[in-house]
């Protein structure tokens, strides 16, 4: 049986209860994954049931909801199924299973979580702010995983005096810090008027980037391993007037 969720945590937990005793269950939030011949139920979120499931799971492992939050943010299409297998094992073992790394389901979940947290760490470095005329900072990004709001605490603690917007252009939403509070909002497109000196700083950064490289030691493969090309799009060092390799 396929249990189709709406992608939310509540819907997942509701599906979890329904699917638990079905060892071959497939839990998914993406209808494109449907395979022919299998029965499908659409699971809408049921707050009471979800709360019950959550309480139960927390009694086995007090940190498990953090795992769930990260798993459901993953950009992998099989994320609900990975989470389902992991939480099923937790419910069967009735104790934390995080360290059972020889188990396939735990391994899958832990790798999925690692990808999400690794991307957060990477983005702490790769985010590029543009300075707007008002002094607020704007960063467009397109992360693999649904993590914009998880980036806020990092930037808020280092730039407390600057309002900023982290815009996930793929998911069309933005995490906003207005100088006091943070919130998440849908955002289709942003109109940003740049500050008078923004272009000049970008140009200096491009100059710096080019000058600090040692061309005799080109190791592009390694460079792209550390910083995959899909992140380059929003980085001014790659939108230089001249091609960056010259």
């Amino acid at each position, binding site marked *: 049986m396929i249990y189709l969720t709406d992608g939310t945590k509540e819907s997942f937990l509701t599906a979890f209860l329904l699917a638990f005793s079905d060892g071959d269950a497939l839990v998914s939030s993406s209808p494109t994954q449907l395979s022919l011949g299998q029965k499908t139920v659409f699971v809408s979120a049921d707050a009471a049931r979800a709360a019950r499931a959550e309480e139960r799971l927390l009694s086995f492992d007090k940190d498990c909801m953090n795992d769930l939050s990260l798993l459901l943010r993953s950009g992998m299409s099989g994320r609900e199924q990975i989470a389902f297998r992991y939480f099923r094992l937790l419910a069967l073992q009735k104790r934390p299973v995080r*360290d*059972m*790394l*020889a*188990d*396939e389901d735990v*391994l899958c979940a832990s790798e999925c979580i690692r990808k999400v947290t*690794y991307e957060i*760490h990477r983005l*702490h*470095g*790769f*985010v*590029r*702010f*543009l*300075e707007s005329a008002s002094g607020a*900072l704007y*960063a467009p990004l397109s992360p693999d995983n649904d993590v914009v709001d998880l980036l806020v605490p990092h*930037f808020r*603690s*280092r*730039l*407390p*005096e*600057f309002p900023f917007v982290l815009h996930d252009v793929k998911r069309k939403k933005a995490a906003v810090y207005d100088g006091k509070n943070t919130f998440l909002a849908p955002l289709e497109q942003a109109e940003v008027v740049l500050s008078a*000196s923004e272009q*000049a*700083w970008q*140009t*200096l*950064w491009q*100059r*710096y*980037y*080019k*000058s*600090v*490289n*040692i*061309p*005799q*030691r*080109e*190791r*592009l*493969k*390694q*460079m792209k*391993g*550390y*910083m995959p090309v899909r992140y380059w799009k929003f*980085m001014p*060092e790659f939108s230089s007037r001249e091609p*960056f*390799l010259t």
Partner: protein
Amino acid sequence: MIDERRLKILTEGAKYDVSCSSSGSKRKNTGGMGNGYAAGCCHSFTPDGRCISLLKILMSNDCVYNCKYCPNRLDADVPRVSASPEEIAQLTIDFYKRNYIEGLFLSSAVEKSPDYTMERLVRTLKLLRNQYRFHGYIHLKGIPRADEALIHEAAQYADRMSYNIELPSERSLKLLAPQKSKESLLLPMRKLAEDSAVFKEEKRKGLFLPAGQTTQMIVGASPETDGQIVRLTQSLYRGLGLKRVYYSSYVPVVHDSLLPDLPVGQLREHRLYQADWLLRFYGFTAEEIAPENENLPLDLDPKCAWALRNLQLFPVEVNRAPLEMLLRVPGIGGRSAQKILQARRYTHLTFEHLQKMRVVLKRARHFITASGKFYGAKSETAVRGLLTAGETGENATQLSLFSTAETALSALTGEL
């Protein structure tokens, strides 16, 4: 705002310093901009595969010293430029605000005199910390022979300081960097280590080099062996409590009869970094890693080489071996060793388990058993053959992940 021309010259003069790490400081934001990121953070990568974490720049390239290997030495015919403390501070702030960098790595040629230069460096740091209320990372390269009081003052504003040993022996230093001496480099390092200890003991307010000290030496410009370099490295860690020792393989930018004309292979630098990791994270001593008058083998990583010299200790059983021993197995790095420790609490590990856990077994299988089973080659010659196969120069250069920041490293290299 600094102009592009000077930025280019001052950056090109600083880029051969290998250190770019921004780790080790937990400096808090107390109003203003910035904070420390203890794990360190890479903001970009250049086509040479190195991480950009800090704005690495010289205050000036106008030098009164005459180090033979240096493009900025007194005798060199190059354009001379300097930046003002205000220009450097503003550049740092505007780059930091846009999240281009994690902080500043400031060094300088010896302009006019050591004290004049050091005073300008300190002024820049004070401007950043006091006026701009900047709490991001600052690494300052100390100027040899500068006044002790200035050095002490700098340490109250910097997160990390470094004096570069430059060359791995006093003789080479005399020959190639005549105005520097062992004392002019080691004395301030020792003094800073002592001051830092006093600072901690007396629990004084503020911070004093929270990310400690590092150093760097040029490999291949002078005749010292890897065995000597690894011993020197160990004594710097033990005696001066340094956080990191960096190696920079010699790139000839200057022609001098005292210097080799060819660059040193990246592979040698890579092997030294591997040896350095063995010292810092794997519990090895310099004496175990390489005989004093020898270089590290190029066809094998130093852990493999050690294991082959100590085959009587292997194979070890992964279900029982203590952490220290797991870490000595070729191919098993810190992360894999931890995974094994965790997983074996729940189940008796087999080879299939290890494979599933993504423990790289290519090298390790010759040195372990899993639930009593051995999958390695039978004879020492066969093991040696299998270990060296594929470790060609080119291959190993691609493996050279070590010149980048510590964080990227721990994520990507764990396995040694």
